[in-house]
């Protein structure tokens, strides 16, 4: 009797273990499948034209204007969200660690972190693209700046959160030691705490870059896209993700090949960034535990 119960428990346990292992294998299969498809299709479509020709040539062209546009907007987005994010994160960690305002901002920042990116694109369309077009009577509407602002909104919560967490990891004795020397709070924060947390804050900035570099939806209604090379932040700007989106929607298989090459570039860039920061970050985390 009791041995029957025992056997049944052992069997249920074994079944649960097997199912759980199968779940993991399924997850890994999808990862391998997606990566394999991207790499194999992307490599066969890689060539020099990709980097030298603009999208206006169509099937005979490349993605050079999209690559330049993406790099420009990503950089501009970082220039916007990194300072704001680091200062906001510092406020949360140093001035509002326990206050109600701090708790509210932290909470809403977490929500912003997972808010739908297409909604942020619409937001920037309404507050930047439409007013700019009204002010300039249509001369400037969709623009690289608008795209960068939309991307900055995606990177911002990542930076706020990591900065907040990293500064909270700095030991309290460091603060007390500095304050006991009569250093004003701002000097303590900038010259002691931020310096101690530099690598952590940098990790946050890189994570934000990895996140915003692959975004497509917020760029559709802000930067729009452009078939020609542009260096002006006030004109419609091409980007790799939006070019991939347009080429995938096109029935022409030659454009699909270019889209795969773009997909490979962007995946390699994003995954390399997140893997690097992960290595960097996990080494840091261990030393604090």
């Amino acid at each position, binding site marked *: 009797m009791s041995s029957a119960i025992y056997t049944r*428990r052992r069997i249920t*346990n074994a079944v*649960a273990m097997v199912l*759980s*292992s199968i*779940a993991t294998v399924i*997850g*890994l299969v*999808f*990862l391998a499948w*997606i*990566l394999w498809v*991207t790499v194999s*299709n992307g490599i066969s479509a890689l060539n020099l034209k990709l980097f030298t020709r603009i999208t206006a040539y169509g099937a005979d062209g490349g993605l050079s204007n999209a690559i330049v546009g993406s790099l420009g907007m990503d950089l501009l987005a970082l220039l916007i969200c990194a300072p*704001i*994010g680091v*200062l*906001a994160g510092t*406020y949360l960690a140093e*001035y509002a660690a326990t206050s109600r305002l*701090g708790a*509210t*901002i932290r909470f*809403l920042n*977490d*929500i*912003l972190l*997972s*808010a*739908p*990116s*297409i*909604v942020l694109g*619409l*937001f920037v*369309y*309404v507050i930047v693209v*439409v007013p700019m077009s009204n002010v300039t009577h249509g001369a400037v509407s969709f623009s690289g700046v608008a795209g960068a602002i939309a991307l900055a909104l995606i990177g*911002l*919560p990542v930076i*706020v959160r990591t900065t907040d967490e990293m500064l909270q990891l700095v030991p309290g004795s460091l603060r007390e030691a500095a304050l006991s020397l009569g250093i*004003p*709070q*701002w000097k303590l*924060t900038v010259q002691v705490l931020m310096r101690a947390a530099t690598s952590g804050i940098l990790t946050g900035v890189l994570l934000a870059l990895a996140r915003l*570099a*692959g975004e*497509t*939806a917020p760029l*559709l*209604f802000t930067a*729009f896209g452009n078939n020609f090379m542009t260096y002006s932040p006030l004109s419609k700007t091409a980007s790799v993700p939006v070019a991939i989106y347009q080429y*995938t929607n096109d029935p022409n298989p030659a454009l699909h090949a270019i*889209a795969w090459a773009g*997909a490979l570039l*962007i995946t390699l860039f*994003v*995954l390399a960034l*997140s*893997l690097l920061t992960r290595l960097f970050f996990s080494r840091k985390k261990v030393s604090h535990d």
Partner: protein
Amino acid sequence: MHAARTETPARDFETRARTDARHDRIFHGALKSCALLVLAALLGAALSMLWGGREVLFQHGFHFLTSSSWNPVTDDYGALAPVFGTLVTSLIALVLAVPLSFGIALFLTEIAPVWMRGPVGTAIELLAGIPSIIYGMWGLFIFVPFMARIEPALSSTLGQIPLIGKLFEGPPLGLGILTAGIVLAVMILPFISSVMREVFQTVPKRLKESAYALGSTTREVVWDIVLPYTRSAVIGGIFLGLGRALGETMAVTFVLGNSDNITSSLLMPGTSISSSIANEFNEAVGTHRSALIALGFLLFVVTFIVLLIARLMLRQLARREGN
């Protein structure tokens, strides 16, 4: 002489203290305004979409929420079809992703040998790092043909069961609600499993060890000790995944098929809030554009509520951990 000598450093000290205090105030103000910008961004997003969609939201009002017609020619807009598509695809994604994520989290915390946990965990989380446009391309070019091959088999097996059979009727297009749901499931898998994995690790060792000492099997420990201890956070993680699924655009736009119909079959093409916006926005003018922004407002409100619940549930565990 004496007085002057002692006075100078004192006055120096005072002016310095005063400038320090002033700098501190400026610094504090700068930091605080940056932090308030985060609040402003979220509030601004809600208000701006309410403003952008005011024409449709206030003039059509209730009709917008209950009508299933979407006709740019007659300017008659109802959100029912996109809302239906968004909810159904997200639901399919949850039904598939929750058990899989649970299995993965269980594997990574209890079953796998320790050397395997790091690399496998990182690999699963890499799924979260792949840009959603890549999921869309893979979905359209690889997964849709794959589904088109297995859908006849689904129709002839699951489709024959009396009640749920209706869900699996229809032509094997490959495109459709079911395909979109599966792609979404793969996308949210890493989010849910990493939350579950993290909270499973917060269960005190002595609780688990006590149960093992009483002769529990691993399944019993997870089911009776780990899950009850982490219940609220696990639900929080699931809602976090749901929030992602509701708002995802690029992964579903290509594979959904873009049709404004509400059908009982999961194999039929459909639409979703985000894919309607992505597909139509740049060609839309006037009321049509306003209707799309109003859809965005709906999406924002729904995901906000879902994410709010998620964060509240996750916070409960964190608070208990602190006690």
